[in-house]
């Protein structure tokens, strides 16, 4: 055992204790779903900042984005406009969603869809999409954690990494069960502090060793140009549309993921969310520099078989052993926070929507926190099995697909916040068209994020999330027009204009 391993183990143990202590934070009675799943909707600006930051910028993001920069160059930086424009959107949309959710006691997006459109199939579609998109996302957090453990000498053999993963998983499940959303909220403080320390240190140390940023960019450019599939540090014109459609589509999808919704609804006021939209971009700056570390890995001449290991390898090479321990702890804890929130978000959908689908609208009893708690355990166990028993590539592909799927609930959930003119049947058909289009495009490109669309003799490579949403919107719009024009009953709306204020 090295000093880094001890520091790593101590930090991970410390956050576990925090996770359990979190159940005593605030009013300790965690018997209602609001208390367990949303921390009682009492989080202020600072707690929400850490929680949302820890939730939206996952360990997987911090590994995958620099890995893409390392492998493909400039395209990876779509993450920058993506996380820039996400916040004006959240500012407008999620503050409104928070208000109606608070007023009417919603815990999930599907709760809203159910009330707004009076359509149980649509509610079920929204809920199932959320769960399906979340499962591989949790699995990826665990896979990222495992590869960091395995390749960095903390748990050098595959077997010891698996044992560590199992222990971390059991503890994660236990404190999520006990403390609900308060556990990741508390742990997020530690996680984000460690991430900021790590990245600031990396930026202070690594580029200087490599001869400064100008040299990093030049060396990265040379290394990218020499790859079998040549890349560049400056975005080439044929990728302009792919770049902006990836950024736009991802920004729309970001905040309708169940885990984002869960974090947003835990805020104590709509102003907490609005304020955070001006404060959270600090994480986007952090993410940009983490992505640039992918170029540092190129400049340092790091060769890895799996691009996801470029950053762990870079840290091992440039950080002293004890500090590498801190950096790896940051990544592992960075996986635990979103994994907990995601399991809570998926459990909420299960408990509030999927299990309740067959009850009539007005007869729904309040959901007991206990139901959701056990469901969160099931979700985590499912994700653990995916992470351990199925090849990692499956989770990567499935998560990519999930990102395109989740955006198909956008018309019902987000446009539904502003208009009731869309017909529930049309929304359901639009959703189905979007899911089919996304699945087909993803499958036909062999699991790529970008699809070469042929229109009128031209080929336009664009983001699959974006193209599939367009398909969805066309079907939703046209069918709504037809159904409304022919006076097909469009279900009742339990919300009133005052609920949205």
């Amino acid at each position, binding site marked *: 055992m090295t000093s880094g391993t001890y520091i790593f183990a101590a930090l991970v143990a410390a956050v576990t204790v925090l996770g359990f202590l979190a159940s005593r934070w605030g009013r300790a009675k965690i018997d209602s779903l609001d208390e367990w799943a949303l921390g009682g909707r009492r989080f202020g600006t600072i707690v929400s900042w850490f929680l949302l930051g820890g939730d939206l910028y996952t360990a997987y993001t911090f590994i995958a984005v620099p890995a893409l920069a390392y492998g493909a160059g*400039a395209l990876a*930086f779509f993450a*920058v*406009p993506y*996380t*820039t*424009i996400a*916040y*004006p959107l959240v*500012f*407008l949309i999620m503050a409104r969603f928070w208000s109606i959710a608070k007023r009417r006691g919603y815990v999930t997006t599907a709760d809203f869809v159910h009330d707004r459109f009076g359509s149980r199939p649509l509610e079920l579609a929204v809920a199932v999409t959320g769960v399906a998109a979340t499962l591989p996302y949790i699995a990826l957090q665990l896979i990222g954690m495992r590869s960091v453990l395995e390749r960095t000498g903390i748990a050098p053999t595959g077997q010891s990494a698996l044992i560590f993963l199992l222990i971390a998983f059991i503890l994660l499940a236990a404190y999520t069960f006990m403390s609900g959303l308060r556990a990741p909220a508390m742990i997020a403080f530690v996680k984000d502090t460690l991430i900021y320390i790590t990245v600031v240190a990396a930026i202070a140390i690594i580029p200087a060793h490599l001869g*400064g*940023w*100008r*040299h*990093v*960019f030049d060396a990265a450019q040379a290394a990218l140009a020499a790859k079998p599939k040549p890349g560049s*540090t*400056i*975005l*080439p*014109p044929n*990728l*302009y549309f792919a*770049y*902006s459609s990836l*950024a*736009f589509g991802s920004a729309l999808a970001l905040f309708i993921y169940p885990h984002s919704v869960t974090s947003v609804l835990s805020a*104590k*006021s709509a*102003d*907490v969310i*609005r*304020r955070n*939209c*001006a*404060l959270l*971009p*600090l994480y*986007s*700056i952090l993410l*940009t520099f983490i992505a*640039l570390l992918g170029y540092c890995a190129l400049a340092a001449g790091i060769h890895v078989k799996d691009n996801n290991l470029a950053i762990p390898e870079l840290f091992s090479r440039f950080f002293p052993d004890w500090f590498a321990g801190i950096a790896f702890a940051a990544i592992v804890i960075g996986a635990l926070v979103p994994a907990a929130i995601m399991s809570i978000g998926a459990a909420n959908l299960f408990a509030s929507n999927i299990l309740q689908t067959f009850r009539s609208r007005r007869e729904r009893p309040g959901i007991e926190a206990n139901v959701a708690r056990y469901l969160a355990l099931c979700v985590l166990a499912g994700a653990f099995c995916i992470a351990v028993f199925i090849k990692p590539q499956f989770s990567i592909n499935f998560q990519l697909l999930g990102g395109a799927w989740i955006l198909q609930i956008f018309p019902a959930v987000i446009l539904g916040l502003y208009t009731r003119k869309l017909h529930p049947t049309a929304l359901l058909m639009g959703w189905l068209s979007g899911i089919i289009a996304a699945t087909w495009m993803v499958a036909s490109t062999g699991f790529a994020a970008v699809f070469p669309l042929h229109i009128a003799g031209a080929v336009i490579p664009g983001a699959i999330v974006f193209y599939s949403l367009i398909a969805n919107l066309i079907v939703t719009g046209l069918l709504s027009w037809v159904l409304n024009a022919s006076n097909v009953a469009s279900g009742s709306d339990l919300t009133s204009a005052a609920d949205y204020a």
Partner: protein
Amino acid sequence: MKRWLYWLLAVPFVATLVPPFYARREPELFGFPFFYWYQIVWIVLSALIVWGVYAATRTRAHD
């Protein structure tokens, strides 16, 4: 109501979603190609715009 202020939130979209504006190497800043520092600057500008709109439109009720 200062509803027109919300239109300011559209500015970051125009600025960051049109790569032909900024997919260039020159002018460099501190060794960073334009493509990179321009986008970083827009993270900050966008946050300032959001803060400005927030400050100008917030209701007097405090939480």
